[in-house]
């Protein structure tokens, strides 16, 4: 399979990488795990003049807890490193479990968290659970850095707010009061399949009352989206099966799925309804799973 020619760069520091991106801008593609960029290049969907590899930026490879800030995950952390992280397994098992559903072992050993986010597709498996956990991202460039809520990062199918000279550095899951979270993905196969639809939730439960809930839908709109009507409806209510079923119906109503080879609009709406209900129940009963 043909690979277009390009010039390869592997800067040693994040500052050096930023300086290169400032110079190359749109002519460069950032290479992290490669499972998306090389795939697109082989299919002729992408032919950058320059490839800027992040492979030497070891500062973006760790997962650490910073008191007062939360858990910071470097953009170059791979899916299997998320899956195997004792810190994440202990605090937010829902994220390792989502990483595990992502793709085959071979891809999970290559693909990175940063790539899954910057890619910007609505079927990505990590953004929904990260948004449910109120995560933020840090973008750096030669001109400085900025942080934003992950949910504000996506603005259309495969479109994000990153500008060509920026590099995604890390993702932060803040300290929080949530008592449970989970991501349920429905794919056409159990392995190696994109989500037909997926639902991530986080809940804050106190004595059988839902103090707060976040519901995030994958593959149910041009971007990953929050089901805010359903979230607002749940807030402060006493938990019951009927309540969760109603929230599912509301999430389905506000979802904006499209027809595609993986599923019709009607099918996806139905999935959103069922998965929302199930995800809420699972997070309420079992915690961060």
């Amino acid at each position, binding site marked *: 399979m043909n690979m277009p020619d390009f010039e*390869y760069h592997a800067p040693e520091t994040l500052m050096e990488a930023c300086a290169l991106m400032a110079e190359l801008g749109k002519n460069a593609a950032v290479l992290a795990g490669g499972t998306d960029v090389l795939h697109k290049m082989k299919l002729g969907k992408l032919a950058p003049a320059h490839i800027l590899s992040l492979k030497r930026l070891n500062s973006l490879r760790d997962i650490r807890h910073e008191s007062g800030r939360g858990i910071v995950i470097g953009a170059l952390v791979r899916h299997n490193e998320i899956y195997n992280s004792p810190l994440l397994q202990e605090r937010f098992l829902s994220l390792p479990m989502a990483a595990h559903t992502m793709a085959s*072992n071979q891809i999970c050993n290559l693909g990175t968290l940063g790539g899954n986010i910057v890619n910007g597709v609505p079927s990505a498996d990590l953004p929904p659970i990260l948004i449910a956990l109120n995560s933020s991202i840090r973008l750096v460039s030669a001109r400085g850095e900025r942080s934003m809520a992950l949910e504000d990062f996506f603005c259309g199918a495969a479109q994000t707010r990153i500008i060509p000279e920026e590099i995604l550095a890390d993702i932060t899951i803040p300290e929080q009061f949530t008592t449970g979270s989970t991501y349920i993905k429905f794919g056409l196969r159990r392995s190696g399949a994109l989500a037909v639809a997926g639902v991530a939730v986080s809940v804050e439960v106190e004595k059988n009352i839902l103090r707060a809930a976040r519901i995030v839908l994958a593959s149910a709109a041009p971007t990953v989206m929050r089901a805010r009507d359903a979230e607002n409806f749940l807030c402060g209510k006493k938990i019951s099966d009927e309540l969760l079923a109603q929230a599912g119906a509301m999430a389905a109503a506000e979802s904006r799925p499209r027809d595609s080879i993986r599923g019709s609009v009607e099918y996806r709406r139905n999935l959103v309804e069922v998965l929302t209900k199930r995800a809420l129940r699972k997070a309420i009963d079992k915690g961060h799973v």
Partner: protein
Amino acid sequence: MAQIITDSNGVKRYLITIFVNGDSHTLLVKGNAILTNVLRDDLNLTGTKKGCELGDCGSCTVLLDGKPVDSCMVLAVEADGREITTIEGVAANGRLDEIQQSMLNHAAVQCGYCTPGMVLSAKALLTRNPHPSEREVREAIAGNLCRCTGYVHIVEAVLAASRGEITPADHEEGEPQ
């Protein structure tokens, strides 16, 4: 950064050193060279197969620093300085690895195209987890597609290898000529 050599046409090549099956190889590769092709064409290690070339089928699986990856999704220049195990590096001293022997015993090879990748995925699993459950075996090889659909025998073979159910007689019989 790998040393860069520019030819008279301005084409840049990168001097990389990769450690394949215990041997160190220093090679000059173009930026767009894919690891699968470098292993097959430059090092003549054709046990690594090319299937979909898009990271779906797993026939190009190699172990990169001990972990299975699709070598079709790795630039050779990105593998600079790293350890690679291909299927040629699994058998030692003319003796098949237990997983290979077990696959022979269980008739887990049909057309054989997926087999190198299957063996490497199974090898990585048993190194990390010597006594996996059937589910764990199935998960570990989920990224290796067998178009003959002979999964049942493959799973049985890996489980048997993990239980050490390879008799010495089987070893003799299965030894390469």
